[in-house]
């Protein structure tokens, strides 16, 4: 194995090192010479991440595996690493805007803010590792790094009961699902004698009969753990409460980062590890995707709280992306990657606007967004574009994301008509989702502000404005000029042997 070349492992893992190192620097700087303005610290952190993101475009993917076959630095890994860095940068800007509320909500006061930034960065380090996973052991370790950080982050506003409740709920269900995962890994190891995806794939490919019951059982348990991360039915119960209760930047990171991490793992495990036995899981995914689509989109209809609404909507989007996974073809894998990429911009845009509005109004109920189009045209436009992109309206990026997913499912349907049912359910979900996304648009543009006395303009800071512009340009740009992202997503998906 030439992968033992002394320089290459560090080349492959440098982004993780950079990020963890910078997180520690932020902690130390704040401990020894406290920065008076915590916002500035947050913008600095975000600025560094943007630099790291730009730097990652210099890096080239490498063949082979590292660290004894556990770690890969292929196009797929790099695609996801960039995605996570992007998400982190957006979330850090959001956290900086949110910092006054952390100071008042966290028992540690101002000191808590720097820790908050650092925790976000450690969490993102775990996600970067997830992008490269090629072994069940590393899968579990990096997954835990992400999940445990999220337990802390979700309950960060210790003086708020809702935040504590969110943290506790996430902890209990998260721990349970981690338990399932590790139990499943044990079964897979017990039946095959390996935890490495490459070896596992080779072993399963020589299998002529369907896999043993014990192996299938282990596989299902691992899928349970991953289902929890991506918020697919029936492991989605935690989502609305946690999304609503957690501090908004954490919610955004759950929606963008954690979900993408879950899909990165799901794609790796299913397409790199378990592809030879696809007969035993593809039908299950078909059912899960349908159920997730319907649950998320129907559940969102009666919601009055925008974070809770986005929680249900994130379940719905897990359903759309599961359509692409269930299709088990190259088009589907590429479509999922594209979807995650554009979903990151869209969701960040929505949460950035929500943070700015809730900072001014103190409420994240949908009626408090009434008249936003007049109070702050830029926030109104940003939230409107985000909602329409989530709903899949051209010329926005979400439209093309959905188009690709449908194309992948219909391609599969040419050989298996069951997939037409999935496409039909997806189509119904699109229509349903339009209803509640337009509900937000209605509040912002059609309805007048609830309390006219208290409907002055909403201030938007410069970094926030910059982040919003980047997101909006990306939403429109990726909707019209889809080609660059489509091609890099397709390239990243090429590492799987799909047709």
């Amino acid at each position, binding site marked *: 194995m030439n992968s033992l070349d002394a320089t290459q492992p560090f080349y492959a893992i440098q982004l993780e090192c950079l990020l963890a190192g910078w997180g520690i620097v932020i902690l130390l700087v704040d401990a020894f010479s406290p920065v008076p303005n915590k916002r500035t610290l947050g913008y600095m952190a975000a600025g560094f991440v943007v630099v790291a993101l730009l730097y990652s475009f210099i890096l080239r993917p490498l063949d082979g595996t590292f660290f004894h076959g556990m770690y890969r630095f292929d196009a797929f890994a790099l695609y996801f690493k960039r995605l996570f860095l992007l998400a982190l940068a957006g979330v850090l800007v959001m956290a900086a805007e949110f910092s006054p509320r952390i100071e008042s909500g966290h028992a540690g006061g101002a000191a808590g803010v720097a820790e908050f930034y650092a925790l976000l960065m450690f969490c993102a380090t775990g996600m970067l590792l997830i992008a490269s996973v090629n072994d069940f052991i590393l899968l579990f370790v990096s997954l835990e790094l992400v999940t445990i950080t999220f337990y802390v982050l979700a309950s960060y506003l210790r003086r708020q009961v809702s935040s504590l409740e969110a943290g506790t709920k996430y902890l209990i269900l998260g721990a349970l699902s981690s338990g399932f995962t590790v139990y499943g890994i044990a079964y897979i190891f017990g039946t095959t004698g390996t935890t490495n995806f490459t070896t596992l794939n080779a072993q399963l490919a020589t299998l002529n009969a369907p896999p043993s019951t014990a192996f299938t059982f282990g596989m299902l348990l691992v899928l349970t753990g991953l289902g929890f991360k991506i918020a697919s039915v029936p492991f989605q119960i935690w989502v609305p409460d946690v999304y609503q209760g957690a501090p908004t930047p954490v919610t955004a990171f759950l929606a963008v980062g954690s979900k993408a991490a879950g899909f990165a793992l799901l794609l790796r495990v299913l397409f790199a590890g378990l592809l030879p036995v696809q007969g035993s899981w593809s039908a299950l995914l078909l059912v899960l995707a349908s159920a997730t689509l319907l649950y998320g989109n129907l559940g969102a209809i009666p919601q009055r709280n925008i974070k809770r609404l986005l929680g249900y909507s994130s379940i719905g989007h897990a359903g759309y992306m599961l359509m692409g996974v269930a299709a088990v073809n190259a088009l589907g894998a590429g479509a999922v990657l594209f979807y995650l990429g554009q979903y990151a911009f869209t969701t960040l845009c929505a949460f950035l606007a929500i943070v700015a509005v809730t900072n001014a109004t103190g409420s994240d109920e949908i009626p408090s967004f009434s008249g936003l*189009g007049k109070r702050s*045209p830029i926030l109104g436009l940003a939230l409107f574009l985000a909602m*329409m992109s989530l709903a899949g*309206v*051209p*010329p926005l990026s979400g*439209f093309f994301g959905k*188009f690709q997913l*449908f*194309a992948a499912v*219909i*391609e599969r*349907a*040419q050989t298996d008509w069951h997939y*037409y049912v999935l*496409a*039909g359910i997806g*189509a*119904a979900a*699109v*229509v349903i989702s*339009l*209803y509640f996304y*337009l509900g937000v*648009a*209605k509040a912002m*543009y*059609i309805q007048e502000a609830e309390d006219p006395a208290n409907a002055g303009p909403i201030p938007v800071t410069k970094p926030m404005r910059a982040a919003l512009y980047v997101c909006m340009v990306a939403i429109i740009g990726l909707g019209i000029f*889809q*080609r660059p992202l*489509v*091609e890099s997503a*397709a390239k990243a998906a090429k590492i799987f042997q799909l047709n």
Partner: protein
Amino acid sequence: MDNLLTIAVLLPLAAAFLAFAFPSDKPKAIRALAIFATGVSLLLTLYIFSQFDRTKSGYQFVRGIEWLPSYGCSLKFGVDGISMTLLLLVGFVSFAGTLISSEIHEREKEYYILFLALTTGISGTFATLDLFFFYFFYELAVIPMYLLIGVWGSLPPGKHGRTKEYATMKLTLYLTAGAVLALIGLLTMYYAGGRTMDIPTLTKNLRLDANTQQWVFPCLMFGFGFLASMWPFHTWSPLGYAAAPTAASMMHAGVLKKLGAYGIIRLALPLLPEGARHWANLIAILACFNILYAGWSALTQKDWKFVIGYSSVSHMGYVLLGIATLNVIGVTGAVLLMFAHGLMAALTFSLIGFFYHQTHNRYVLELSGLARKIPYIGTCMVMAVMASCGLPGFANFVSEVMVFIGAWHQGSTVFRVATICAVWGIVVTATYLLWAVRTSFFGPFDEKWSMLKDATTFWRKFPYALLLAVLLTVGFWPRLLTDIIRKSVQTSITANYADGADTAKQTKVRP
């Protein structure tokens, strides 16, 4: 030179993006930009029409750039006789709509941005030769309407008991449901046609067996039918028009609705001939329901906009009947009727908007003798109503007669009965329209309305005169359009049908 078509289509969208940069306290500049964009777009379309080679039947002015090679997709525009006719319609209606929008005095910036995006959505769908962009523009046309109605619309209370928010949401959901249904069918065709989005290539390559065609066709027929307000999926339509601001109702009733019928003519008929034959009878039956049921509903309406809204659902029935005939004269009539009805509906809605803006009342029975105070508008309204009733001299007459001849010529009992129903439908149309115009515009003058002001300046009169002039021109000289429509219909559509050859000979009955 070949790029002119692309410019004509994309100019309004470019102007919409440009308008973002304008300060919102300069509404005049934004309005001027919108008038410029739609005006130039109309002029370019007219120029293209004048250069259109009337002896050829295929696509002309074809120009495209590769967009997404992995999907076989390119941004490609081109026109044949059918799309040329409809592009002209978009040009006239969008220009007239922009001129009439001077009544909007609130959040003009957003209004014109949405209106321009809507215009490109519609003309893009008519002009594109790429399946992906067809769907892209189709959906692009659906959404701006939500805000146009929701923000600038108004829905007077009535027996319907609905608000404008309800009306606009219903409209959006219906149209999106239709669109996604059509998408499933379109993607199936994409894979069966060898993974190309290019519509002309697809037309050549697509080989779907009859069974598949029989279930893909309804996906398209109902999917596009939602937008064409096919019975029983029409209920969004009168309500939506009633709630929409004037220019939005003009665009929607005038051109957006035609996208649905265009989708069926452009994609479903040529690509799925077996499916079309299988479902033609059902379309004809539903079309009769459109004509008679919607006409019947219009009889009972008291609100001007509901009267015209139901009347436009009823007229779409003739279009659908023409499509169902699958023969040259019927389909040609359907396309010409789309053109004629588009102008007529836009004209009527703009006239209603004119007096509603001053009276804030559009109940037929509460208005009386308006023609005395606003003679110009009254005259235009009478002419619009005459056109709608199918009086000779207007384009509507020619096209309706062609539809009837086509349907009768089709020969089967179903179509014979449908033709009788459709002709009867004209009587129904005349009943409610003449009643409405007589009650509101003639009869004793009510002093309540003495504050009404007529259109006096040239620019106020111009949009109505423009639409009427086109209606009359085509009415007196239908061959201006029928010649090019018929050529395209013959080659691209009816050539696929076994009986296409002998019906082609029958075109002598052309009026």
